[in-house]
């Protein structure tokens, strides 16, 4: 996803001189081409995320389209107040990019697990929160974010679902993408973990279970219409995110559907529930915490078996 983003931004920066990419001294080997081709549109601010975000706000107020780039929680939580006050309050045109959403950097340990960022950043006024599921979405979302003024957070994952744009499909940042159609159950995923949902759909199909798979590439604003349709037209919803269940995608879905008065037949949030995650590859950690395709299949089967009115509540 990272490379897809950099390629997309490189293509855009050549024609739009307002674009400037700030990095907090990360992106070894990845940003070299961009920096060489566009030296006036690239700035390594050093390991100083608070300053990076404040500088970004200042540049944006002078008409630049600013991307701040770092990994894991560094461009988000480390400088959260700068994002809130300097960027969001001023509706500054700053796009925060984090490479390594969820447990992409699983073996590096808890400092590099971005597993609360969605919950925290989606509460910020004026913020658009984009968490693409595949590389096509990354490229398309990058183009849209350049066109759309205002603060945004682009959460990039090391993993990605297979690109699957329909022929002639137009990307709409405000609409969830229906990756598969089905009426037994909806799998609503955000981020690269969409790939696990797609794989789970395939496995469930062999069991005679037809899944609707939604890529919720944009968590804020949330496409409530697509989710309400999913609640009405399918047996129930499983939300899937490489993130704590507290305040993330599943929470956002539950809040908005309940408020709209649309109650799915069943509902379960798949995400992290047990505090800080351990150490290991993204694949290993997904398996360990019940977030891989097999765990999604198990959840779907048990929810369908136990009756459509069950609402799973797990502390």
């Amino acid at each position: 996803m990272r490379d897809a983003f950099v390629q997309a931004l490189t293509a855009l920066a050549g024609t739009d001189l307002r674009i400037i990419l700030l990095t907090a001294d990360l992106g070894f080997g990845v940003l070299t081409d961009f920096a060489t081709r566009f030296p006036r549109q690239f700035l390594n601010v050093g390991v100083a995320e608070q300053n990076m975000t404040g500088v970004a706000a200042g540049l944006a107020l002078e008409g630049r389209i600013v991307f701040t780039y770092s990994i894991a929680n560094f461009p988000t939580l480390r400088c959260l107040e700068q994002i809130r006050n300097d960027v969001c309050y001023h509706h500054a045109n700053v796009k925060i990019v984090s490479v390594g959403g969820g447990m992409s950097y699983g073996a590096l340990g808890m400092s590099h697990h971005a597993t609360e960022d969605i919950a925290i950043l989606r509460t910020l006024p004026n913020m658009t929160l984009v968490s693409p599921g595949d590389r096509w979405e990354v490229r398309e979302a990058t183009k849209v974010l350049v066109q759309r003024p205002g603060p945004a957070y682009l959460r990039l994952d090391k993993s990605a679902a297979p690109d699957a744009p329909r022929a002639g499909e137009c990307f709409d940042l405000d609409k969830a993408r229906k990756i598969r159609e089905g009426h037994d159950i909806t799998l609503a995923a955000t981020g690269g973990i969409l790939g696990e949902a797609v794989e789970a759909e395939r496995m469930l199909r062999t069991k005679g279970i037809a899944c609707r798979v939604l890529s919720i590439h944009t968590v804020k604003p949330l496409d409530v219409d697509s989710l309400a349709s999913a609640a009405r037209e399918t047996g129930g919803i499983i939300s899937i995110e490489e993130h704590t269940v507290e305040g993330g995608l599943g929470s956002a879905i539950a809040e908005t559907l309940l408020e709209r008065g649309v109650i799915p037949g069943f509902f379960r949030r798949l995400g992290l529930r047990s505090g800080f995650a351990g150490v290991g590859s993204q694949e290993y950690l997904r398996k360990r915490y019940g977030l891989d395709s097999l765990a999604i299949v198990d959840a779907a089967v048990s929810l369908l078996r136990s009756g459509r009115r069950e609402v799973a509540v797990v502390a």
Partner: protein
Amino acid sequence: MIQPHKECPRPILLDSRELAKRIRIHSLGMTSRGGGAHIGAIFSCADILAVLYAGGLNVRPGDPKWPGRDRFVLSKGHAGGGLYAALAERGFFPLEKLHTHYMDGSDLCGHVSHHNVPGVEFSTGALGHGLSVACGLAYAAKSAGAPHRIFALISDGECNEGSTWEAIAFAAQHHLDNLVGIVDYNKLQGLAPVSEVIELEPFAEKWASFGWCAREVNGHDHASLRQAVQAIPFTHGKPSCVLAHTIKGKGVSFMENTVLWHYRVARGSEYDSALLELEQTA
């Protein structure tokens, strides 16, 4: 390569002593009516604000977003009342608006905010933000070859924030000689004297060692302040620091040099005595 800023003459538009006096009197009234917001911190920088808004800054009150304006970021946002008063006196908005300060439904909050307040460049209140933003404004101006200057007024307590030093290092690295950091060095912070909390001395040397050109002035002496502003950049290729030695609560004898008046609101006889002292100022 970043080009040095070219000096251009700026007319003195108001008498700065008179403006400082009015800033203090307005701020006393605003904080007393509203029931809060940092009178001591306003008084310590009232002369700095007055020199800037009496001609030090190249601004157009009738066209607050004029692209050629000098940018002023009040990083010590808790002195917002002083900036509002300066802007109103300078003609950015009617003086009557000052009466709403700190009141229900007002645009004028205790920490400076730009929404619906013409002339406020940036909203602050949390310390350690303004200098970074000013760096962004200065970098953008340099990149565009624009001749305007960027001023950030920061507090001494704010220099406890690591982010302030991130910005200081950044500005020097990028030779932002269109950037001016003015420190309201009143030597009192939230709970105690600066020297008892986190000593900043040797303060000017710290700025210099980070690559700035620092100049120490009496922050209540208008001639010195004006001279400093007119001499910017002090050195081509370097950001300028005006280390302004000030007195917290300056202008009202019983408010001077006391932490209490960072927070306290003058009421009753205290208000009357303070107003009398300010009105008797030459």
